[in-house]
């Protein structure tokens, strides 16, 4: 590949590198491998870039798709941390969003004051739900794009997202109560 292609690749990657790096940060189990994961993703993308045909929008989808594979492979070589294991347990009972509008507003207003708990709650989500939530909230992908990135149907995307939101709110309400914020 020539310099012009390289320039285009760097430009597009630079434009999406921050959400991509943050996405990787929240889906990789061994946080020390963040740099490796990002670099492997970039290199893999560059090596396959010659066969890529699409605009910058699809380039973002494509790179996140590659990142998923790269991180999945890296995660296979490491056990989940104990903390993540215990906090990732699936909820057995059907989830119900029990909060009303007023309490929801109050929760949103106190989120800034409990940053660590928010991060912890996101990390505690099961992998699929966390991935969908991050791709939607942090990278701003559409349902269709998320489906392509994760190789799952749109219906599953919506389902995972709804469950992730409910779980997050439940968890954060719980923390807020403990911290006497709500």
């Amino acid at each position: 590949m020539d310099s012009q292609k390289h320039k285009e690749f760097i430009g597009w990657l630079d434009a999406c590198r921050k959400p991509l790096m943050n996405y990787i940060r929240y889906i990789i189990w061994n946080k020390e491998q963040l740099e490796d994961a990002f670099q492997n993703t970039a290199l893999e993308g560059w090596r396959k870039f010659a066969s890529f045909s699409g605009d910058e929008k699809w380039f973002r989808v494509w790179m996140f798709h590659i990142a998923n594979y790269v991180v999945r492979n890296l995660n296979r070589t490491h056990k989940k941390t104990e903390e993540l294991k215990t906090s990732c347990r699936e909820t057995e009972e059907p989830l119900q969003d029990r909060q009303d509008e007023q309490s929801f507003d109050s929760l949103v207003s106190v989120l800034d004051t409990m940053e660590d708990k928010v991060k912890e709650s996101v990390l505690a989500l099961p992998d699929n739900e966390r991935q969908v939530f991050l791709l939607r909230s942090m990278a701003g992908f559409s349902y269709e794009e998320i489906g392509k990135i994760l190789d799952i149907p749109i219906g599953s995307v919506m389902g995972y997202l709804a469950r992730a939101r409910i779980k997050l709110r439940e968890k954060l309400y719980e923390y807020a109560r403990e911290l006497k914020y709500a």
Partner: protein
Amino acid sequence: MPDGVMEEAFDRKVSTIIYKDSASDDAIWQNTRELLDNELEKNLVWQRIRYFVSASAAAVILLAAVVYILLAPAGIPSTWLSAMEQEHQSFIQGDVKSITGMDLAGALSTQFRTENLLSGNECCCALLKNNKELRLEGGNSKSMGGCPCAAIYGRYNTTPVTFLLFEPSGGLSGPESVYGSYPSPVWTDKTGKFNVAMKRLPNCLIGVISELDKPTLANLLKNIDTMGSDCKCGHK
């Protein structure tokens, strides 16, 4: 229950809180840029090597073609002549050794080697019947001196042919003692390159050496049923 707008607001809020934009991320990006630049450099180096190899190969082929075109008409490399052509040339020039490679069977080749008696060109070419299929263009002949044999070099159509003529009274060293049977079979020398055919005529034994295939040689001999009457060297 929060509506879609509220859900999006919640998502954004959470995203804003967990979103990290630190200096370490920039360092990672710089390192990644270096990696990608190196990768590009490697690609370019390989690309240059490939271009160089392709261009060199093309240049060598072109040069070889030019050399061939320039030198071929001059006929410089004598080795490019067919082996048969060289054999004939050597034969005419009296280089007996050159035909040893043809390895004619038995006494025939032995006789050529040991007697080494090719000399002069007084023997004529009119020994053979004038057959339509047999054209001795620019033919030449060599008497074998004391040996009752002669060789005539010519062409059958465009293929070089050497005729070997033997008197029946060749004595012990003559071919008749070896090829006495009639009709003589068609041989091929050991290299498989030349065919040798023999035929007994009323007044001599004739042999043909050529790259012609065996049926053609046999057909050629079939059309030769007598010797010429005006042989200056006395062959009858």
